[in-house]
C-alpha cells in the first residue's frame, strides 16, 4: 500500500506541470492587446495607454518566457498577485479556503446523514409510497437549479422572515473584529467563536450557514439516496441477510447491524468525492449567498481572465483532487478488507 501511495504522490508534480502548461497554452492564444485591455477595463483614455500597459506587464514577451518566469517565481513560493482578490495568490487561497472548508464540513453532516438515511428508508420500503416519496423529494432537489432554489430560500427566509441572513457574519461581528474584540485564528468563524469564547458569534455564524448548507444538501441528497438505495437493495438480497432473517433476528438488527455496514462501502467513496467537490468551492451557492469562498473567487477570476489567480486555484485544485482521491482509495481499502491497493 505504501508503494501505491508514494507512486500516486509522485504523479502530483507531473500533473501540476501539465495543467499549468495547458492553462498557459490557452492564455497564449490571446494577443497582448486583449490581455492589456483587462488592465484598463474601460476604454483607454490616453493615446498610449495600451502600449504602456503591454510594456509595463511584459505582455508582449513570448509566452514561454512568461511561463518560465512564472514557474521560477512559483518555485520560490511566489504565486503572483491576484487582481480579483487584491492580494497575493497564496494569501488569497489561505483567505478563502477556510470559508469554503467551514461551509463544506458543516454541509457534509446533513448531506451524508440525511442522504444515507433517506436511501435506507427508500430501500427498506422498496416500491412502496415512502420509497416513491423520498425519491421524488430528492430528485426535485437534484433537478431544481440551485440558483433559483437558493434565491427562493433567500426571499422567504431572509427578506421576508428574516431568520437566516446571507454573507458569513453580521455587521456587528465585523465591527467587533475590526475593533479587536474578536480574533480569527483559523478563518472559520464557528471554530474561532468557540476559541474566542463567544457563543453569540457562533450563533450568528451558524445562522448565516443555514441556507447555503441546506441548498448544498438538497442538491446532493438525490445522489447519496440513489447510491445508498441501490447498494442497500443489493445487500438485502444477499444470502447472509436472508440467513440473519431466517435466524429470527429482528428486522431492525438485520438492517442496521448486518445490511447497512456492507451497503455503505460504495457510499463512503462517494461521500469522499463529495467532500472534495465541496472543497473545490461551490460557485453558485457561494455567489448567491454572498459567501466569500474559493468558488466565488475562482469564478470571478476566470470571468475577468485573472490568469495568475486561475493558475493558483488550478494548482490548489490539482493537489486537492490527487490527495483527496488518494484518501478515498485508502479509506476504501480500510473499510473493505477485501480490497488491496497495488
Amino acid at each position: 500500500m505504501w508503494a501505491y501511495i508514494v507512486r500516486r504522490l509522485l504523479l502530483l508534480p507531473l500533473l501540476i506541470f501539465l495543467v499549468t502548461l495547458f492553462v498557459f497554452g490557452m492564455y497564449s492564444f490571446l494577443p497582448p492587446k486583449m490581455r492589456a485591455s483587462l488592465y484598463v477595463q474601460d476604454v483607454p483614455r490616453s493615446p498610449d495607454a495600451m502600449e504602456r500597459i503591454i510594456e509595463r506587464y511584459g505582455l508582449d514577451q513570448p509566452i514561454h518566457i512568461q511561463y518560465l518566469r512564472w514557474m521560477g517565481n512559483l518555485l520560490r513560493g511566489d504565486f503572483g498577485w491576484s487582481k480579483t482578490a487584491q492580494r497575493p495568490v497564496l494569501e488569497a487561497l489561505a483567505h478563502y479556503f477556510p470559508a469554503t472548508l467551514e461551509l463544506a464540513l458543516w454541509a457534509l453532516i446533513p448531506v451524508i446523514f440525511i442522504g444515507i438515511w433517506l436511501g435506507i428508508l427508500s430501500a427498506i420500503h422498496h416500491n412502496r409510497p415512502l420509497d416513491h416519496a423520498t425519491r421524488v423529494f430528492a430528485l426535485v432537489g437534484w433537478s431544481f437549479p440551485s440558483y433559483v432554489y437558493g434565491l427562493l430560500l433567500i426571499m422567504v427566509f431572509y427578506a421576508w422572515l428574516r431568520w437566516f441572513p446571507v454573507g458569513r457574519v453580521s455587521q456587528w461581528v465585523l465591527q467587533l473584529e475590526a475593533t479587536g474584540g474578536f480574533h480569527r485564528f483559523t478563518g472559520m468563524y464557528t471554530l474561532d467563536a468557540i476559541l474566542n469564547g463567544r457563543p453569540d458569534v457562533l450563533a450568528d455564524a451558524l445562522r448565516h450557514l443555514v441556507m447555503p448548507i441546506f441548498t448544498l444538501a438538497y442538491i446532493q441528497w438525490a445522489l447519496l439516496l440513489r447510491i445508498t438505495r441501490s447498494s442497500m437493495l443489493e445487500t438485502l438480497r444477499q444470502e447472509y441477510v436472508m440467513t440473519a432473517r431466517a435466524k429470527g433476528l429482528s428486522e431492525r438488527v438485520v438492517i442496521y447491524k448486518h445490511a447497512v455496514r456492507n451497503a455503505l462501502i460504495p457510499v463512503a467513496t462517494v461521500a469522499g468525492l463529495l467532500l472534495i467537490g465541496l472543497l473545490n468551492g461551490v460557485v453558485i451557492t457561494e455567489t448567491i449567498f454572498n459567501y466569500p469562498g474559493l468558488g466565488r473567487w475562482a469564478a470571478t477570476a476566470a470571468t475577468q481572465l485573472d490568469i495568475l489567480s486561475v493558475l493558483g486555484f488550478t494548482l490548489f485544485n490539482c493537489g486537492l483532487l490527487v490527495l483527496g482521491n488518494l484518501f478515498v482509495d485508502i479509506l476504501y481499502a480500510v473499510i473493505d478488507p477485501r480490497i488491496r491497493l497495488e
Partner: protein
Amino acid sequence: MWHKILGMFAVGVLGVFVWAQIPNPDTYIEAWIGDLQSLDPAWHYDTASATVIFNIYETLVFYDGEHVDKFVPMLATAWEVSEDGRVYTFTIREGVKFHEGGDLTPEDVVYSLRRAVLQDRSGGPIHMILEPLLDAYSIKELADKLGDEGVYQLVCEAIKLVDGKVVITLAYPFPPFLQILAGSWCSIIDMEWAIALGDWDGSANWRPWHDPKAEHSKLFNVANGTGPFKLERWVPGEYISLVRNENYWREPAKLARVVFKIVPEWGTRLAMFEAGDVDVIAVPRAYVSAMDPLVAAGKAKMYGPLPGAIAQTGFFNFRVAEGSPFMPKLGGVDKPDLLSDIHLRRAFNYAMDLDTYIREAWLGEAWPVGGPVIKGRLGHNPDQPIYPFDLEKAEQELRLAWGGEAWKQGFKVVITYNTGNVMRKFAAEMLEYYLEQFNEIRAKEGYTAPIDIEVQDLPWPTYLAMMDDKQLAVFFVGWLEDYAHPHNWVHPYMARTGAFAMTQNFDLVQDVSFEPVYATWLPAKTYATLQDLFDELIDMAKKEPNLAKAELLYFELNRLAVDYAINVAHIQLLTRRYEQPWVHGWYYNPAHPGTYCYTLWKG
C-alpha cells in the same frame, strides 16, 4: 473543558433561531457590485475606489453642493487665477490634521500633486493633469525627451511653493483645471507619512516610484487623509469600512461608520435591502421595476431619473484597418473607407429609431443628445437638431452614397458590440433591420446585390483591443465623464488624441470648408482635414476664458459632430438612487463618483 465547549455550542445552535438585530442607526451600509482597485489617490481610476477615496481624502477645492461648475474651498481657503489663466495660487488651510495626527502643510499639497504627476501609472487618471500642466499625455513621453532630471525640474517648476502658497503654472490657460483639481486623483496626502511608508522621497530620483503596479504602490491598501472618515478595514472582495474622523476640521460627520459591501448578485442585494441590512443598493437598469413596489409601499426612497454623466454612442470608423475581419465591402469588394462617405453615415442616423431604442432598450431612462456635450454641461445646445427617424430621408441618403454606387452595388457593414450588452445589441439590430429593408425596394429596381448589415458581438477584451487597432467599422461604446466639463466630451469624441476619435480616422475627410454659425467672430476657413478643424476648435474652446464665447465654440463643435454624422444613436443615460426611508441628507452631483457620506444621517 468539553462540557464548556458543548455548552457554548448548544447556546449557539439555539441562537440560530433568534431574530436579527436592528441595524445600527449610526452605520451606513451600501451594497456594491464590484470591489475597489486601490486606495492610492494617484493610482485609482474607477468609481468604487474614487467613492472611498473622496470620503477619506480631500482636495484643494470641492464641488459646491449640486453644482458642477461652482466650487467651495476645501483644503485651500482661497485661490487666485492669473489674468492669462495659467497661474493658480492657493492659500492652504491651517489647523487641519491628517487622520494619523500629522498637520496639513503647503508642502504636503506640493508633494501630493508632484507625486501624482510623477507616478503617472499606465492607464491611470494622471493624463488629465498632464495635458494642461505640461502639455503632454504621459511622464514617460516627457522623460524620453528630457531625461529624468529634466522632467523633475519641469514638474517642480509647474507645482511649487511660493511664500507659503501653492502655485501651479499651466502650459496654457485651461478653465476646467479646477474641475480636475476637485477630482479624487488630486487628493492631498501627508508627505511624512508617505515617505515613512517607503514612497517617493520628493527628490529627483522619482523613477522607482513611477508607474507602479497596483500592489506595488505604498498607498495601495492604507489611507491617511484629512476627510470626514478614516479607513477602518478593507477586506478585498468582501467589504471596506470607514469610521468617523472625530478630529475633523469641520463638524464631525453624523454617521459613526460607513460600510461598502461587495454583493455581486442582484437578487442577494435586493434581499439585503428588503431585510434592512443595507441602506443603499446598486440597481442595474434592467431591475428598476423590481424596486417599484418597494417605493410604492414606502419601503424605499427613489431619486430620479437624474441626468447621468454617461453616454452611449455608436461610432463610425472612416477607414477600417487592413486585415480586419470586419472590413466593409462595396459591391462585394473590400472598401476600408466605406464609412467616410457622409451620405452613408447620415443614412444610418436617419434609420435609427431613437425613441423606440430608448423606450425598449433603456426602459425610457435616457435622452438623445445633439453632439457630444451632454445636458447639464456648458456648451450643450438644447436647440441642436438631431437626426429624426425618417426612412424616406435614409433612402435619399443611401441613393447618394458613393455617387449612387452603394445603392446599386450594395454594401456590407459589420456593427459590433461587446458580448452581453443587450442594449447595444438592440441598437445594432435596429440599424440592421431598417437598413436591410431597403433591399426590397432595390430589388424592384433590379439591384440584387444586397445591403448587408451584420451584427457581431465580441468579448470585452477582444472588443477593446480591436477598437484600439481600428479594426471595427461601426461600434457601440459608452463614455463616463472624468470631470464635469465639455472638454471631457469633445476631446474623446472629436480630438485627434481622443479615446474614440483616434480610432475613427477623421483625417480621411479633406478640404473641409468651415462657416461659423455660432462662433461668428471666427473667420470662414478651409481646413486640410476634418480632424484639423475639430482640433483647432477644441483647442480654442478649452483655452477660452470667456464662458460665453467658450459655450458658442462648444455649440459649434456639437453642430459639426451632427452635421458630419460622426456618430449614431448618441444618448445620455439617466440614473436613479434607491435608499432606505431612514436615510437622509443625500444630494445629487453628477461629478461625484458615488455617495459623499459626510452629509448623510439615519433616522
